[in-house]
């Protein structure tokens, strides 16, 4: 009996097996998570059904019935909710795209100013950054809108010349009417851009081979400018302008940049620029001073040093946090709904939700779209980050 006990090795409990334990707990976590999600979905569906609330995505093909102003794609109240959703989507993308560009340019300038040795410039940039990034964005949007609303009313608009007016409804400008042969001008532009790239490559190859330099940049620029202009006039300048005219109430005709768009764009860009300024400052400071000194020692001119040594290294530090700022800006554009800018939350997540009552569906669509936009921006920025990352040999 005693020998038998000794012969059988002591059965170790499964619990003491690290591998089993880790698998068990991971499975348990996934199980609980899956169960929680299923429970929430089931509970929502059951409760919706109990309360007699219809569900499904069929409402998207119903007539929307409401008007939106200054849409980027043609839209009127007889179009469907899906079309209204597309209006919102283009609105969001439009303001986010320009917001990112303006915020980046302004942020880079501010970031460099923050490093200025001039005390006044340095402090002004510092005060701006601290004030703007510490005030809630929604308030800033309201402030900018209130400022724009305080502009003269439509009948007392500022005339900016060339058919452009500025008033509390935004900016009105002439809209172009393209003639028959106008398509040749953009074609000429693309040809010129292609040629400029070709010349650049050729010049680089020749410089690598023979050491002779060629003013490729200026040649390319001249080409990009001259060729379309020459084509435009050669085809008989096929472009006319429709100037906005003041009717009994409002301007008719022409292009409009609304006060809501301007307020949202300015607020988003000003707010995000303050964060970008700090990122840029950190990025530049992160490049060791020895790098600049080494470049000087090699005889590089100061602006070449900046372009070839400092900026490429600073970008590696700047780009990853810059991505987060672009994502924030895009998501923050949803606040435009509060001042009536036709973007996603105002259309599908607002008026459509209200008129149809399909809250769960509308919010799901809105969330899915923001997620897709954010992931796309992330993917693009990750690609860009890889392309400028340090290549180790």
């Amino acid at each position, binding site marked *: 009996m005693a020998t038998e006990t000794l012969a059988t090795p002591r059965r170790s409990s499964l619990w003491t097996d690290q591998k089993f334990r880790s698998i068990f707990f991971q499975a*348990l976590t996934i*199980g*609980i998570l899956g*169960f929680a999600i299923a*429970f929430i979905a*089931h*509970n929502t569906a*059951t*409760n919706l059904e*109990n*309360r*007699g*609330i*219809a569900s499904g995505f069929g409402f998207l093909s119903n007539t929307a*019935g*409401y*008007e*939106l*102003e200054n849409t980027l794609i043609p839209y009127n*109240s*007889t179009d469907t909710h899906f079309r209204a959703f597309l209006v919102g989507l283009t609105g969001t993308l439009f303001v986010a795209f320009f917001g990112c560009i303006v915020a980046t340019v302004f942020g880079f300038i501010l970031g460099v100013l923050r490093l200025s040795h001039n005390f006044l410039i340095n402090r002004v940039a510092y005060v701006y950054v601290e004030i703007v990034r510490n005030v809630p964005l929604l308030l800033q949007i309201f402030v900018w809108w209130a400022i724009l*609303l*305080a502009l003269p*009313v*439509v009948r007392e608009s500022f005339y900016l010349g060339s058919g452009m007016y500025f008033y*509390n*409804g935004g900016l009105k400008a002439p809209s172009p009417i393209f003639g028959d042969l106008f398509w040749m001008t953009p074609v000429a532009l693309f040809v010129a851009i292609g040629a400029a790239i070709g010349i650049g490559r050729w010049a680089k190859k020749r410089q690598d081979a023979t050491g002779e330099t060629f003013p490729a940049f200026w040649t390319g620029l001249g080409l990009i400018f001259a060729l379309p202009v020459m084509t435009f006039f050669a085809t008989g300048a096929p472009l006319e302008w429709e100037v906005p005219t003041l*009717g*009994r*109430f*409002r301007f*008719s005709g022409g292009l409009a940049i609304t*006060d*809501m768009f301007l307020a949202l764009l300015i607020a988003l860009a000003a707010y995000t620029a303050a964060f970008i300024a700090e990122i840029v400052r950190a990025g530049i400071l992160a490049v060791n001073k020895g790098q600049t000194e080494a470049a000087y020692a090699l005889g590089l001119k100061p602006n070449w040093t900046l372009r070839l040594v400092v900026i490429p290294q600073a970008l590696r530090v700047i780009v990853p946090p810059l991505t987060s700022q672009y994502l924030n800006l895009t998501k923050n554009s949803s606040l435009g*709904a*509060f*001042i*009536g800018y*036709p973007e996603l939350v*105002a259309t599908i997540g*607002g*008026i459509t*939700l*209200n*008129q*149809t*009552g399909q*809250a769960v569906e509308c919010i799901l669509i809105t969330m899915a779209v923001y997620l897709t936009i954010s992931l796309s921006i992330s993917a693009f920025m990750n690609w860009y980050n890889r392309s400028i990352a340090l290549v180790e040999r």
Partner: protein
Amino acid sequence: MRLTTLLATAAAVATVSAGVAAAGTLDDVKARGSLSCGVTTGLAGFAAPNDQGRWEGLDVDMCRAVAVAIFNDPDAVTFTPTTGKDRFTVLQSGEIDMLARNTTWTFSRDVNLGFEFLGVNYYDGQGFMVRKDLGVNSAKELDGAAVCIQTGTTTELNLADFFRANNMSFEPVVVETGDQARQAYEAGRCDVYTTDASGLAAQRAGMSDPSAHKILPEIISKEPLGPLVRHGDHQWGDVVRWTLNAMITAEELGVTSANVEEQSANPSSPEVARLLGSEGDLGEQLGLSTDWAKNVIARIGNYSESFERNIGVNTPIGLERGLNALWRDGGILYTPPFR
């Protein structure tokens, strides 16, 4: 073992939460000791806190009347301010027991959103307000105008329909709250402000120079405003419906807060006796006390008293009874009999 317990608990929770939706709201309210009522975020005359922070208005009276019918206490109400946008979600989710928020009774809200409208406490219609110096006399002259609208209302649909039907175009300025819409209108961002005519009167009363604005004669829609509850709880729906009916019937029968005690002791007609609980058991049939309607009249007043106190001609809102007069006075207020 642990997982089984968890599953069992979750199943129990699921059953309970499904149960809550179907349970009697009246019992819930009684157990809680107060009524939870959704109102506007502030519209003078309909629902707005006064300078002492006490909610007042026609819709507020509706909430208080239901509280009196249940608890005989006009202050047993928690007011939840809701925007045009979130009001339905708040009611659907069970956060409030009833909604009295200038809400238009429409087919899709009644049928598709899972609500039950219980009557009309104000017959309204959408109108337009413009600055007098624009020289506009009719809504048909508004082609090309910029119009300020609050989002989440039937207003934006009526507006689009009206302009389309008349082959006119407009520039919508759609903002989140009524106050913002008024701010944009006052700044001259829009030429026209549109909402229900009663709302226009209320908003005009709050402007810096009310006499500079005028309300155009066209009423472009039917807006029957009334209280609503979640669909499916008929007992609770009956309580709210008959509280409203009691106030209107009291006006019809000449019962006021001043004479209700006397009428109760000495009913002038059998219907007064049934209404005030001196005879019959109408209150018990609703699950309330016998004298529920008497309390409502005594503490809130009949419909006419509530109307004149909140939005009548002697208030800053200054609305005529118009459509909201009793049927025998040229209006369309008409209730089924208390029998």
